[in-house]
């Protein structure tokens, strides 16, 4: 995966759910005592200016036809690591980028109620826009004081700051690396603030994080499969 001037080869994408208080309140979820983790698979990754493809079979099914944006700060793992201490977490981080955790919301809500995995609603192809660049750790001294914003067709829908993260970047890396060996290029997305809402074919989604840049993706309806 070519990322501006950096080539990364992620073996996994780990997302943190319910990590902004304002988002926890809007979704009526419990405040987690430890980070909530779920995976997305690499087939979801697309870059700046690539389209988000709205799957036709979701679009045509009233039980499933809601897809949401979720603006998130993500960080990229620099080298293979396990049992990282939060004291030296930043040594293991290559840099930061913008991630949109696109989610088939009605499907997720239905699966959550049935105590099923959070996987299928999160990992359709193109449901993980990322970019436009990786800003290195030394370029962003404090990742916990960055404005984060998402606009749909120019209208601001999410506007917050990474200082509202419940579990901060070093805590997340310590926690996640207790479970899994992380590999260079692995992507960790840190959760979304309040203001989630739906996207529709034709929408233009702009996701910005201060000091990193803006990720722009248009939503298009999947074409008929031959």
């Amino acid at each position, binding site marked *: 995966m070519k990322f501006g001037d950096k080539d990364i080869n992620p073996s996994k994408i780990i997302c943190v759910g319910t990590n902004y208080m304002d988002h926890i309140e809007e979704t009526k979820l419990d405040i987690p005592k430890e980070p909530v983790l779920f995976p997305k698979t690499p087939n979801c990754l697309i870059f700046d200016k690539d389209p988000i493809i709205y799957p036709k*079979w979701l679009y045509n099914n009233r039980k499933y036809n809601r897809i949401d944006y979720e603006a998130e700060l993500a960080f990229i793992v620099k080298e293979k690591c396990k049992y990282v201490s939060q004291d030296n977490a930043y040594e293991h981080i290559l840099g930061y980028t913008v991630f949109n955790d696109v989610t088939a919301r009605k499907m997720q809500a239905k699966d959550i109620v049935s105590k099923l*995995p959070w996987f299928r609603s999160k990992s359709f192809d193109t449901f993980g826009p990322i970019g436009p660049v990786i800003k290195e750790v030394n370029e962003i001294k404090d990742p916990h004081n960055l404005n984060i914003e998402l606009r749909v067709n120019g209208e601001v829908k999410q506007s917050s700051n990474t200082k509202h993260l419940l579990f901060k970047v070093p805590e997340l890396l310590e926690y996640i690396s*207790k479970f899994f060996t992380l590999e260079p290029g692995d992507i960790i997305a840190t959760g979304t603030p309040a203001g989630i809402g739906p996207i529709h074919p034709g929408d233009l989604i702009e996701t910005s994080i201060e000091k990193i840049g803006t990720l722009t993706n248009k939503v298009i309806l999947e074409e008929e499969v031959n």
Partner: protein
Amino acid sequence: MVKIGNIEINPTKIICLGRNYLDHIQETNAPIPTEPVFFVKTLNTLVTDNQPIIYPKILFENENLNRVDYEVELAFIIFQTCKNIKARSAFDYIQGYTIFLDITARNMQKNDRNIHLPWYRSKNFDTFGPIGPRIAPCSEIENPDDLVIQLKVNGVVKQLSNTKHMLFKIPVVLEYISSFITLKRGDIIATGTPSGIGSIIPGDVIEASIEKIGKITHEVILEED
């Protein structure tokens, strides 16, 4: 990159089916699914024949979490990139079959599920995905729906079933999963476990076998400091 027998594969994902044998659904008191239930394991879980399964110390030392289970499964390997494929042409996209162990931190999974959390962390500790000992090509196994599947712990048979008891058969599974996500060459799909699941502890030797494929053997060891 993982070498299974004499074949190297480069999977981008491991997709596992839950609740795909009726006897296992009954033993876990789970509802019968109306469509396949699937979840992900990440590549850090993979180990091959004769490598140890490492029992994480953070589970072993916590009495709320110290149950880790075996689950023997038939897995298939994707042959070429595919999306939205039809069940009738499914076998064109399968390279072959192998044995997979879906090692699961059971108490952690139950706790997470009861509070509606994802099924992820309990399934994805390092070494929680033994695979092998080889990939049997489709040409060797004309009917994957009639294979004896067995798991032994320290020589005692714990799981014994046949792949004919799978609720969703391989072509249906492949059609369903590929309606969500693009599959790539080398991707691994594990088809679920039959009844008889139970726990493993450090020192156990696990032998998992599937007719016409072979056997994998893994010792369970406690993680060192």
